[in-house]
């Protein structure tokens, strides 16, 4: 599990808050995980609330039979009238009969299953005895009392790492890129690794349960996402060494990230230059046109995905925006240090949340754009403020050179929309609403 540390860096003192957190729990990352690993199935052991959360967050996918489901605990399970392990076995049997194609079944713990201390590892072990190797069974916790949003992925990757095969000398994994990336980004990165002459690169997670990387003492890894504290620790415990870098967001972030890798693998400077010159130029060109929209704009981040420090750094360094507050559900001191170090001294950083107080601060600061979750965005808009859904940064390809412009555009769109509508509809702050 991730742990929270103070980010001891150039930014101002970290505001640590433990009031109401207005964030998703770790179950939510199943929404992209189940699409990334196409032969996996995620079975939440939880309550009707878990099922309802998944459906509310992933509503648009309702027309498919998804590769996730909830085993909903009922009164008789809790009252001890039914042995929950037997019940779970029954649910899994039913599921596998219906979906025999599942290669990897992932049991996911939830708040209620954690509170009653239902032992998922025991269940996974038992089910593996019955169903492996046809259906591997894994488990991790996505509960909201332990994880926030992207930390669900952290725990899933940790589970994968813990049971990954050892990397042997005949087929050695030289580099693991850890953290879910959209396929299009993975493919771009793969081409760049080819151009840099770096071989033996694997992505974690792989696109199928069979494509998971092996890990050995010769393995280096680099994080593609900032929220992987536990997974990084697990990789290190398997002997892999972390390459430190800021994250591949924006032209500068991507260059720093590739440079850290290139340096690790001894790629000559001119080769690095040759491989990255064209995409760097493209990224800069793409960013150029968005700068007038962003330069000097005042930005306020509510906590969501732990991407916030990286996004703030990108906005500050590459677009000239001013950062009012960087909220993040957790700050991994070591992994976030590079990003926070690039923010101007004194930038307010907050960890955890007391949503009411944070709303007060946001109103007082009156920023040009508030990056926040869907529960807060429309109420802010109704006050005449501009917002950007933070969740889009988790679902849109934003990493790498070719997406640098797209990343900027995500921030620009609400500003541009405002400028169009303002003239057409002539609305004022506090526009009337129904």
């Amino acid at each position, binding site marked *: 599990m991730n742990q929270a540390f103070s980010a001891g860096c150039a930014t101002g003192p970290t505001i640590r808050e433990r009031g109401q957190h207005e964030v998703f729990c*770790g179950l939510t990352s199943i929404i992209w995980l189940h699409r990334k690993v196409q032969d996996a199935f995620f079975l939440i052991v939880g309550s009707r609330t878990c099922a*309802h959360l998944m459906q509310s967050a992933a509503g648009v996918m309702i027309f498919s039979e998804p590769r996730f489901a909830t*085993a909903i605990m009922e009164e008789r399970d*809790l009252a001890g009238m039914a042995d929950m392990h037997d019940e779970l076995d029954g649910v899994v049997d039913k599921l596998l009969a219906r979906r025999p194609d599942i290669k990897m079944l992932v049991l996911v713990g939830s708040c209620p299953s954690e*509170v009653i201390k239902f032992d998922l590892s025991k269940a996974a072990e038992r089910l593996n005895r019955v169903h492996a190797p046809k259906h591997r069974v894994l488990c991790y916790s996505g509960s909201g009392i332990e994880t926030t949003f992207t930390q669900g992925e952290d725990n899933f990757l940790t589970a994968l790492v813990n049971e990954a095969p050892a990397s042997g000398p005949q087929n050695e994994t030289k580099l693991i890129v850890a953290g879910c990336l959209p396929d299009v980004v993975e493919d771009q990165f793969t081409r760049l690794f080819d151009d840099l002459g770096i071989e033996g690169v694997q992505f974690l997670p792989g696109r199928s349960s069979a494509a998971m990387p092996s890990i050995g003492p010769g393995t280096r890894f680099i994080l593609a996402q900032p929220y992987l504290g536990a997974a990084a620790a697990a990789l290190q415990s398997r002997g892999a060494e972390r390459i430190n870098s800021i994250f591949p967001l924006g032209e500068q972030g991507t260059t720093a990230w590739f440079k850290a890798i290139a340096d690790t693998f001894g790629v000559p400077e001119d080769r690095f230059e040759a491989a990255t010159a064209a995409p760097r130029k493209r990224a800069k060109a793409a960013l150029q046109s968005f700068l007038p929209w962003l330069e000097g704009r005042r930005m306020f981040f509510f906590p969501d995905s732990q991407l916030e420090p990286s996004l703030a750094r990108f906005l500050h360094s590459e677009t000239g925006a001013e950062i009012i507050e960087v909220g993040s559900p957790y700050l991994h001191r070591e992994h976030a240090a590079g990003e926070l170090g690039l923010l101007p001294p004194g930038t307010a950083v907050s960890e955890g949340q007391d949503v009411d107080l944070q709303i007060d601060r946001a109103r007082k600061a009156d920023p040009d754009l508030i990056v926040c979750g869907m529960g*807060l965005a429309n109420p802010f808009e109704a006050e005449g403020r501009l917002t950007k859904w933070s969740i889009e940064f988790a679902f849109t390809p934003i990493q790498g050179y070719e997406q640098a412009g797209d990343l900027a555009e995500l921030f620009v769109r609400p500003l541009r929309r405002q400028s169009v509508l303002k003239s057409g509809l002539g609305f004022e702050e506090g526009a009337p609403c129904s």
Partner: protein
Amino acid sequence: MQLSMWTYEGPPHVGAMRVAASMKDVHYVLHAPQGDTYADLLFTMIERRDSRPPVTYTTFQARDLGASTADIFKTACHDAVDRFKPRALLVGASCTAELLQDDPGGLAKTLDLDIPVVPLELPSYQKKETWGAAETFYQLVRACASNRRRPETIAANTCNILGPTSLGFRNRDDVREIKVLLEENGLNVRVVAPLGASPEDLARLPEAAFNIVLYPEIADTAARWLKKAYGMPYLSTVPIGVSETRRFVAEARALAGLESVPSPSENKDRLTWYSRSIDSTYLTGKRVFIFGDATHAIAAARIAANELGFEVCGLGTYMREFARDVRAAAKDYGLEALITDDHLVVEDAIIEARPELVLGTQMERHIAKRLRVPCAVISSPVHVQDFPARYSPQMGFEGANVIFDSWVHPLMMGLEEHLLSMFRDDFEFNDGATASHLHAHSPAAASNQHTAPAGISVEDQITLPASATLWTDEAEKELKKIPFFVRGKARRNTESFATDNGIHPITVETLYDAKAHFAR
């Protein structure tokens, strides 16, 4: 333990939130972990609510388990009352907190708050969203309206409207329609609750002559209590459809001691004429499958059968609490009601019933979409589409107009798709043909794609799996010549005829024998 992909209802505390979010000056302190805050977006996104719902979550964490969660709850109550200054406070637990047994009601009592505190006991592992809303409304009404004095003289024409809630299917517009309808009929609507009401309004409920239960699923419990406590009669005819709207008006007038006359807004009814006008003749006998909450499903079946001339081929609900009503309604159509909250069972039932139109929830809309059967949404659970910008009631005369359009439009669009499919043998729709304008300009591959959807028709989609092998080639070819708008029925009837008579395979003769047999 129940395996669930998608659900028709959320947990009961979401029902409580809907009631809290419906009202003014009510706040809900919910003992719950951080993930449960997702429920806010139901209101801010689906309903495009312009303020946060009045809910404070304790968002306790693993490290708080043990002694401190109760303290967190108390702090949250204090802070919420300070910040939001509600006139009544709801307190309760979500599924996780229920397991902690912190007793929110008891804890809240210790705080000596100077407003009514309503503790909610909503068993998360037994009950669901709608029940939670009904229970919450009932508890709130009891808390606010207990021990009031019912005035000695009450104007006979005064009434309250009970049941409309936030996130209710078209409740926003139903209330507007029905208020106008009642008022033009000489009734005086005092309180609408919970939607838009304050705790003080609830206290005024006993001051009206009678109650109107617009949504029985939500308001039945409260209305029964008001009857018991104050002898207030209530009306629970649901004014969906032209005939039920008329009945509703007649009954409301009777309760108010007014004589029976037609409503002034009868002239807004277009359903009656549109359904009668000759272009609607093709609606006659269309097979309709209906699934939703009990009230809307029963009303939809009645309108479908009596006002549009459809044949109801399936009727069901996900609300076990109202299963009896739906079972009784289904009998009227010679059907066994489908009572389930498993959408996969509903999907199987739809495939089995081979409807030409599906009326259901967003879930059934997506099932129908996969099956390429026309569909309209008639019930919660709601989606952002169910909160249109325009005025779109389901109730009253304009509601009936809206229903006519909403149900017939998908059929018309389906007809268009079918006409396209009828044209597929024409050479301008043939693959690779260069005859038509479009084809002349597009690559052949693209023209293939143009015609692809035309090749799909309902009867091909919802054919039983084995049926493909039941037919001789010649019979299958002959079937294709039958006009598209009866082909689905022809296939269905022929297969059932063949099964009943032990005929295998189906020949051209069988096809026509079955046609003659089923002629009616």
